[in-house]
């Protein structure tokens, strides 16, 4: 419904938005009624590079991805944006494929490509006809260690990155608020910085910083190869050994990141912008992820987010939007996929004339209810059933499996974790959900954020 016939989505090589927005969505994909989700095969190369294969023989096509276990949260102080800037520059060239030849050769061979940067990973992918797989393996392996950058490349690409930042963030009041919320929510963890970087630091990133980051983190022992499509592990193994297995191991540092101290105070963030025409409110709580904090809460929290605010029949939507008519929209969101701490959010956008105090009180009433009384057996089984179904849908598209597996494996999870996701969701008990609600809704761990118009009266 929110579509305009006139709009065209601009394309680009860097899918930060995908990664920012969809981690929880990806997680929700990974479920099934059967024992497994994607049934991948995996093996290790001698140099420590993990290889994962998902066979899908629908058409003679493969998606080839290399994921590096490094992202924006691994950047040093003062270098925000370097992971993403490097991702752009990876398309510039090597001695074997100079001047952007990689993309030109790929296109001549009917291939499509892109790359993305998140807090916890950086990934590069190509989709090609099965008989062009070796070609892309050769080129991708080459740029793992042979990237050459001129200062001119860097200076021109810096302008592109700054335009990307304007396009994604500065032109968008909600995105500007998101930056402020993250900076307030995370007191110490690098998730407090934007993936694309602060503008003044993007301006200052130089060749030493960028190449230093590349040398430190890009190595086979810090990378994962994922190939999905018309191929088996037995077919891929000799190719993986030939192209990637010969790259020397490097002394990649451990991913030692600053961690959060105890949070002691609820924080309030208000952002006013003349471009805002529909105010909104959200409360973002620090939460465990699958691998950080009290991880036993992660699966119950996924159920909680779904029941409380996952769609048109969820509690928040029903209560605030349909019954009380206080809100245009309302819901909840949980993102357990991070290597570091996760976030649990509730949000609502007021109907014209509704005061924030009224809106927030209505959300808090639903939150209190779920803390005090939990959810019903019926809600639990409906939520579990819908999650199981989406795992089957996830098997349909060629690109879903490698994306879900890549994100999981670079963020501290194992294939076993992904494949047993449905079992773990199915094991969540009613009491677990109520306990998770009591655990996560601690205001001292949260930021309450308002997006307001600087021109219109809001309260």
């Amino acid at each position, binding site marked *: 419904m929110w579509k305009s016939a006139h709009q065209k989505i601009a394309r680009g090589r860097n899918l930060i938005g995908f990664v920012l927005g969809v981690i929880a969505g990806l997680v929700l994909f990974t479920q099934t009624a059967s024992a497994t989700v994607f049934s991948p095969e995996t093996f290790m190369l001698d140099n420590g590079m993990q290889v994962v294969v998902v066979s899908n023989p629908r058409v003679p096509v493969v998606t080839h991805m290399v994921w590096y276990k490094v992202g924006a949260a691994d950047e040093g102080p003062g270098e925000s944006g370097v992971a993403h800037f490097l991702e752009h520059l990876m398309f510039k060239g090597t001695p074997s494929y100079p001047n952007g030849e990689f993309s030109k050769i790929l296109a001549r*061979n009917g291939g499509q490509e892109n790359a993305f940067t998140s807090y916890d990973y950086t990934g590069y992918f190509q989709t090609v006809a099965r008989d062009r797989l070796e070609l892309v393996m050769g080129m991708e392996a080459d740029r793992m260690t042979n990237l050459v950058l001129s200062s001119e490349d860097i200076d021109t690409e810096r302008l592109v990155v700054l335009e990307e930042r304007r396009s994604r963030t500065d032109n968008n009041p909600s995105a500007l608020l998101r930056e402020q919320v993250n900076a307030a929510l995370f007191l110490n963890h690098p998730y407090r910085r934007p993936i694309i970087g602060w503008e003044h630091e993007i301006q200052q990133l130089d060749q030493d910083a960028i190449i230093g980051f590349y040398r430190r983190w890009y190595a086979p022992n810090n990378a994962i190869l994922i190939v999905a499509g018309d191929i088996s592990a037995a077919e891929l193994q000799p190719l993986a050994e030939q192209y990637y297995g010969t790259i020397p191991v490097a002394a990649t540092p451990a991913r030692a990141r600053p961690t959060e101290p105890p949070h002691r105070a609820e924080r309030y963030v208000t952002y006013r912008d003349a471009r805002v025409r*529909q105010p909104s409110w959200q409360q973002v709580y620090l939460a465990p992820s699958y691998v950080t904090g009290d991880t036993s809460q992660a699966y119950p929290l996924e159920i909680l987010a779904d029941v409380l605010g996952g769609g048109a029949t969820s509690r928040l939507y029903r209560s605030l939007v349909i019954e009380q008519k206080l809100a245009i929209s309302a819901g909840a969101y949980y993102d357990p996929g991070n290597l570091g701490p996760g976030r649990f959010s509730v949000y609502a956008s007021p109907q014209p004339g509704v005061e924030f105090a009224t809106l927030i009180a209505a959300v808090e009433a639903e939150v209190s209810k779920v803390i005090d009384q939990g959810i019903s057996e019926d809600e639990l089984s409906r939520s579990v059933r819908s999650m199981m179904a989406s795992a089957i849908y996830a098997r349909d598209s060629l690109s879903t499996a490698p994306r879900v597996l890549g994100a999981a494996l670079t963020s501290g999870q194992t294939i076993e974790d992904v494949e047993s996701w449905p079992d773990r969701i199915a094991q969540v008990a009613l009491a677990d959900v109520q306990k998770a609600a009591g655990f996560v809704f601690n205001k001292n761990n949260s930021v309450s954020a308002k997006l307001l118009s600087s021109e219109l009266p809001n309260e």
Partner: protein
Amino acid sequence: MNRLFAFILTAMLISNATPAKAVEVQEIVSPTGIKALLVEDHANPIIAFRIAFRGGSALDPDGVEGLANMVSGLIDEGAGDMDSQAFQGQLEDLSIRLSFSSGMDTFRGTLTTLSQNKAEAFQMLRLALTEPRFDDEPVERIRSQILANLRQKSQDPDSIAGEALFRKLFTGHAYAKASDGTTESVSAITAGAMRDFVSRRFARNNLYIGVTGDITASELKQVLDDIFGGLPEQSGAWALPQADASLDGTVYVTDLAVPQSAVIFAQQGLDRAHPDFYAAYVLNYVLGGGGLTSRLYNEVREKRGLAYSAYSYLSPYDHAALIVGGAGTANERVPETISVIRDQWRLAASNGLSTTELENAKTYLTGSYPLRFSSNGAIANMLLGIQMEDLGSTYFERRNSYIEQVTLADVNRVARQLLNPDSLTFVVVGQPAGLDDSQ
């Protein structure tokens, strides 16, 4: 009646043999004469329907702009005996994915279901199309959401630019309408107008259906009648004249306080059925269509760092045809961006493409075609498209030969005749330096 067409994807690949994979397109005709194209795929227990009715938001009556869009938001909010919560609850319980959308020329529906819930899924699609309720609660709720969206879009540079372009190009024609409506028009839409829309616009004669997944031809035949048999034979009549786009090279500027201007542009395009369409398609690939390799991408982004994205695409509509492009660029660099784009247009118009560019374009366009067959939904959507464009059910087999047949003489003739740098008309939304409105 079913004719079977084997579509061997490997035949289209650039070279080399790989194990043959067949995508068989079947023409299905139900006992009462409803047609569909089907690709069976039983690998996963999933069925995808993509349907469309010809006739979209351009037909919204004056003063009721946004009608098609509002209907698309409401026919899954209660139908038959089920009110909104019952309907949405059943969709959720059975993990049925059902949604509708409207475009300028079409009204579309998508249904994706697990095989185990197909009976209910088909029933819900039938109810949405034939017995939508338009109860007060969902009508007012969806209206308030659309109004909120309109308010927010009024400050979004890309949305403003898109609407402004069509308003300027098609003044006096239905294509100039705001497809999601205005605050006034959306506020005025009644349940009666929406019921009237449903009864006049959803009919068998303007319906197109593409289906892919875990369903057999014989079952689909029956199902087509179950779902769509209750629709009227004929839609209400309408007439839209051909739209004559006003393309005089103007640069229109809309002031908006944002750091980056949205820049979009257009010139005359070619109808989908035009004999030169494929030559123009290849030409545009080289000019602004190729992901990371086009001339615009190279000149605007790679060499000068003027924008994060720079692109163009052929945009044929039912009653007009455009080439549309865009870039997002810092306010102070807008004049330079516009001049680089015009220069590229001029260069291509006068010099055409090189032999190498043409060959590279052909190997990309033919070699990447199989990549589109990536999911049930994607294939069903393509089946829908080839019917709406009247390309014939064997189109998947023939498509690459149309690309292969484009010669350098063709593409350069089309470049000369079609590309017109002086008619390239721009809309800029932002605070561009050194540009006054209508420069």
